[in-house]
């Protein structure tokens, strides 16, 4: 089918009708170009939003408030206090939970000093698993580890802004002691937050210290302020969210109907909502682009019909010389596929080039990052092209095969 003669012929007809072929090809070109740009932009939007998620996409947070209903003889408005035993209970009774990261904050007004400098920062006591819930980059030194937790070591990981404020330029903070509310903590690492600019700024102004050290040093023994969890792989976050809340309610004598005593947030729910939005954007992009491609293919089909009409005589001659119907069909079909595939290919190139250009310009907002064209898009676009090309050529090709040589040759 793909012999040199047919290529010659396609070249000859295309050369004879440059403008007409160009205009037709443009329709297909534009369709593919739109598809790539729309899908790429959609992907960029998605990347941007996903990057702004600074926490694990399946994280669940649970915190305590005051009770809103009396229960088991306990009065309304009681403050619920989580303890270290809650951690053990959750670990033992809810096997679906993967990460348990208790956190304690340091409330009230206090300052952090190093030598003569002092300022106020947010101070949180964390476990090592904190990083699995809220990813951060440790840019120097190390993060809190389990040995710190077990030995209640007074160690701290500081944000970049903390370093800027407390330390002289060029001074290495690692190994130095900073004073938090009068108690010395050894700086073991510097971390940098992830997510959108707001999150990064917040992380830069935060000091993370060993959770158990915080409990002991600041009079919070056996108290836990806040929990972060992630479920084991394949388990929906909502499952552990419900189980954990039910268990904590039971352990702290909260009425099962009391919806206010425990607060929680489920990132997975939010994430699923966003994912749904992207699915719709993707579907819309395909819908628009496929429409354009079909319009382009109809254009190609039309042009091929005109070409068949113009070449009726030639087809008649070929038939008289012994051309089989299939050889005529493949001649027209191949031309159609070549026009669509080639113009679509250029659309693919142009679309990808535009995406790359935007990428290289480093266009990056809060909700837009790395627009990209992945292999799946490229391959599906290519498949769409070949299918449309075949469809576009089919009707004209059949018409050509049915040319009656007697009529074609008497066309004088």
């Amino acid at each position, binding site marked *: 089918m793909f012999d040199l003669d047919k290529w010659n012929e396609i070249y000859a007809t295309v050369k004879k009708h440059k403008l007409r072929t160009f205009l037709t090809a443009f329709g297909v070109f534009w369709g593919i170009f739109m598809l790539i740009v729309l899908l790429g932009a959609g992907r960029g939007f998605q990347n941007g939003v996903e990057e702004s998620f600074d926490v694990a996409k399946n994280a669940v947070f649970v915190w305590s408030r005051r009770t809103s209903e009396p229960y088991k003889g306990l009065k309304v408005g009681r403050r619920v206090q989580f303890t270290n035993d809650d951690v053990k209970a959750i670990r033992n009774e809810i096997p679906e939970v993967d990460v348990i990261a208790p956190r304690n904050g340091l409330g009230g007004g206090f300052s952090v000093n190093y030598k003569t400098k002092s300022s106020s920062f947010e101070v949180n006591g964390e476990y090592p698993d904190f990083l699995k819930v809220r990813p951060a980059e440790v840019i120097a030194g190390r993060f809190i580890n389990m040995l710190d937790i077990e030995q209640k070591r007074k160690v701290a990981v500081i944000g970049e802004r903390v370093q800027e404020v407390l330390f002289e330029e060029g001074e290495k903070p690692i190994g130095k002691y900073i004073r938090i509310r009068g108690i010395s903590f050894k700086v073991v690492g510097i971390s940098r937050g992830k997510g959108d600019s707001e999150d990064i700024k917040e992380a830069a102004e935060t000091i993370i210290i060993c959770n158990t050290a915080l409990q002991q040093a600041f009079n919070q023994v056996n108290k836990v302020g806040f929990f972060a969890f992630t479920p084991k792989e394949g388990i929906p976050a909502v499952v552990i969210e419900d189980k954990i809340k039910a268990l904590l309610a039971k352990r702290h004598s909260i009425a099962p109907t009391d919806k206010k005593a425990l607060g929680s947030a489920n990132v997975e729910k939010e994430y699923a909502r966003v994912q749904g939005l992207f699915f719709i954007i993707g579907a819309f992009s395909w819908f628009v682009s496929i429409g354009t491609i079909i319009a382009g293919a109809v254009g190609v089909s039309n042009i091929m019909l005109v070409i068949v009409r113009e070449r009726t005589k030639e087809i008649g001659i070929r038939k008289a*010389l*012994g051309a*089989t119907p299939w050889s005529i069909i493949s001649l027209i079909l191949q031309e159609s596929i070549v026009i669509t595939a080639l113009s679509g290919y250029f659309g693919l190139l142009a679309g990808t080039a535009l995406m790359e250009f935007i990428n290289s310009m480093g266009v990056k907002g809060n909700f837009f990052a790395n627009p990209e064209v992945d292999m799946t898009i490229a391959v599906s676009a290519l498949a769409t092209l070949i299918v449309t090309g075949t469809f576009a050529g089919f009707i004209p090709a059949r018409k050509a095969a049915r040319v009656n040589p007697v009529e074609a040759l008497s066309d004088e």
Partner: protein
Amino acid sequence: MITLKQVHKYYSVGKNKLHVLKGLDVDIQEGELVSIMGSSGSGKSTMLNILGILDDYDEGEYHLNNTLIQNLSAKKAAYYRNRFLGFVFQSFNLLSFKTAQENVALPLYYQKVGRRKRNKLAMEYLEMVGLSDRADHTPSELSGGQKQRVALARALISQPKVILADEPTGALDTQTTQEVMDIFKEVHRKGITVVIVTHENEIAEQTDRVIRLRDGIIESDKVKQEELTVKE
């Protein structure tokens, strides 16, 4: 070589049927040089189209090279046209965007002969019609006589059993007409059956046998006397 038995052909014109061929009986032997004459509307073009498997007939039988040609699939018809027949037309019907050599080679393309061999053979046949120096010219760069000679080379290259020519000299002047007729005669001498449709008496006179059609029936079928006496 060619046998027509009571061949009828109708064309439907609106609701009416037009009876174009009303029972033709023709028997053409291998190697004959035959002309078919008749005024327009006599059915001679229809007859040629049926002989060329370009058109169907409605009744009777047509045998070509001892093969019954009836209700053939498009593929089969293409095969027989390609193997048994060579066409020469009044308007030459060369492909305008191809060179003389490519035009001549085209029937071999449909026989799936390799490109190199095809072009070599095309060159030989162009030489035979005296146009090897015009091999790279497109039809628009050739004169009428040259075009018809290219068309003849194209008809001959597949080594057909029968050459069918439809008014082959209709568009040519007297001198080139003679040049083309000389080639037809040479082809005839090589033993190929040649059927020429014409309305020119000078052409018909140069053939061995003249079949005259009138209103879809054979008016006369005359074999030249001297040719007969030579044979007998």
